[in-house]
């Protein structure tokens, strides 16, 4: 019986292709839009993920990572005084202007990390030695900065440029996750960051802390908040806080949500309609099957098999196309594109739903079908 069902499905080439195309593009649209959305969200958290610290301490009213509310210098020691803290180090973060020798200007995200431990430094160094950050005027610049400030001919190890009229020298080129604002990251030591930035009353942006073994980051964040009144978040909590802020304060969520919904509706409309037509056209065959004794349940199973088969194939092709898009158009981090397991599972569920709904329409038709239809011609 299943063989017959599949034979019917693949036998009608134009309808099969039509069904497949509908499901494929629906899948591709949802996956691609969802991935771009998630890619954007990943970029929005790059300020957190690039630093890679377990617990972030800052003002308790902070909304998101790029919104900096500076703290007093002594906060580092206040955090160190909380029990359960293995270490706590200061971090400077802020947007500054860099000027090249040829007069070219670029906004950069300056990150100042504690000089002796270099906690918060990027994990991947493409060129040079990150330890040299401790030498005078040293900075590390990321691959985006190299690209923005004029490519590898202009920016390489030893190049000097200015940050707020202070001369700095590139000692390392690092790999970072791009940020939402798309500013290149420039790393230097905390002390030097204080030196090159304009005078302010407070400059400490964040305190990074790590729990001693046996204390979870969540527990430590809770303790720090309770004992000091400061806002303390684990990496994940801070990331989600940032995402929530972006969804509430920008149109990004609505925008992508609408597109995904449209993809879903269009996919459902096309496949539902095509599948219905397909069933109607094959009514005589189904009638014949019923006439030779197939029950409605068996026909329903056939319909479901057909629908899920084409659904699975459509899903595979769609997801593959979306991945190909990600690898080619958005390869190397040029565009925000990040597929995730939850998204893929969600799309699979959505597709199952589309197939199920389309099948139900057809099954209803079949249930009312009388075997006599075969003889009406």
């Amino acid at each position, binding site marked *: 019986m299943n063989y017959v069902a599949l034979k019917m499905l693949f036998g009608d080439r134009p309808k099969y292709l039509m069904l497949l195309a509908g499901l494929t593009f629906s899948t591709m649209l949802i996956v691609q839009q969802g991935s771009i959305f998630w890619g954007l969200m990943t970029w929005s958290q790059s300020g957190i993920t690039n630093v890679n610290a377990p617990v972030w301490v800052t003002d308790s009213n902070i909304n998101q990572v790029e919104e900096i509310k500076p703290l007093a210098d002594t906060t580092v020691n*206040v955090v160190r005084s909380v029990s359960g803290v293995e270490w706590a180090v200061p971090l400077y973060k802020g947007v500054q202007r860099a000027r090249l020798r040829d007069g070219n200007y670029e906004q950069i995200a300056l990150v100042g990390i504690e000089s*002796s431990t270099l906690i918060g430094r990027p994990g991947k160094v493409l060129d040079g030695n990150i330890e040299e950050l401790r030498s005078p005027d040293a900075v590390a610049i990321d691959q985006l900065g190299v690209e923005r400030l004029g490519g590898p001919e202009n920016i390489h190890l030893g190049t000097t440029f200015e940050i707020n009229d202070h001369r700095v020298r590139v000692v390392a080129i690092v790999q970072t996750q791009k940020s939402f604002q798309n500013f290149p990251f420039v790393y230097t030591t905390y002390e030097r960051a204080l030196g090159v930035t304009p005078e302010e009353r407070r400059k400490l942006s964040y305190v990074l802390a790590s729990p001693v073994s046996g204390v979870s980051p969540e527990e430590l964040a809770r303790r720090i908040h309770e004992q000091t009144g400061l806002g303390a978040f684990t990496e994940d909590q801070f990331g989600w806080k940032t995402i929530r802020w972006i969804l509430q304060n920008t149109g990004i969520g609505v925008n992508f949500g609408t597109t995904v919904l449209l993809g879903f509706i269009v996919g459902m409309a096309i496949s539902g309609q095509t599948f219905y037509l397909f069933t109607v056209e094959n009514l005589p065959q189904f009638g014949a099957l019923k006439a030779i004794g197939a029950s409605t349940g068996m026909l329903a199973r056939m319909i479901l098999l057909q629908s899920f088969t084409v659904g699975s194939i459509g899903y595979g092709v769609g997801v593959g196309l979306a991945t190909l898009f990600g690898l080619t158009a958005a390869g190397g981090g040029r565009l925000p594109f990040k*597929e995730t397991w939850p998204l893929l599972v969600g799309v699979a569920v959505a597709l199952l739903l589309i197939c199920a709904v389309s099948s139900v329409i057809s099954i209803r038709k079949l249930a009312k079908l009388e075997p006599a239809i075969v003889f009406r011609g």
Partner: protein
Amino acid sequence: MVLRRLSFWIAVGGIILTIATLWGANKKVAPPPPMEAPPQNPYPVTVAAAGIIEAVNENVRIAPPVSGLVTKVYVTVADHVEQGDPLFQLDDRELRAQLQTRTDSLPSAAARIAEQEIRLRDVQDQLKRLQSVTDRRAVSEDDVKRKWHEAEGAKRALIRARADFHLAKTERDEVQAILNRLTVRAPRAATILQVNVRAGEYATVNAIEPLIILGDTETLQVRADIDEVNAPLMVPGSPAVAYLKGFTDKAIPLTFDRIEPYIVPKRSLSGDNRERVDTRVLQVIYRFERPSFPVYVGQQVDVYIERPVEPVSGQDHNRSENGTPPSNISRPLSETEETP
């Protein structure tokens, strides 16, 4: 059936491609290990503080008594000086010229005394001669009286000449004293820590930077700044350790000396010469033995002070180790304004 196979394999390929891509991309990278071990708290519960190493009895910041040109600096950095040793010399040419004038006026004043003495003797002789004449017709009463007055006048003139001489000497001594003041001397035995002045520079009285810093580098102490928020947690006499910046594997054990009773605005230790005031701190002084590795006056250290696990009665009502929320929580640190 070609179509079926083709679409099936494309679908399988797509899924495999996606899974492969996802597998590679979603691995979370572990943070790179710290270059040096960050300073770690050796006690179960602690009060952390930023400290600076200084000479015992603090460092002496030498300033000039008057503004003036520096003509000679007698010391270099790391010299040991005894109390009263000269440190530097301010320009004294003008005063030396004055001194010369004053000194040279002395012989003249002395000569005036001699002159007056001779004159007095002369007048007294004459008076004596006149008085010895008994014949009233030869010498009139009037002549004798006039000579007597003349003698008295000469006596007074001599007194004045002596007073003038004394004054001239005092004036000379005054110039000498002011002159001596232009040589700045060490107020006590110490080591020269910093020399910020060179011959030929103009030293002003109100300069921000001291001309010379001296201190006793034999015994050192740590001045630990504790944020005022944490000040109640500090228990006098608690043991502590200090770590040099960037040298965290060796701890320097500290012994408690005293708590400065007055909370001061924190001076930023960022190294910027424009000191920023951002919060107030409690300063605690700890002494330490010189460790085997070199430490220097002015070096920054991270200080960890032990505090008892049980809340200290009368001081520590609001805080507890088990995280029961303090009653007056949610005073974000960034809102504690300082009064400069």
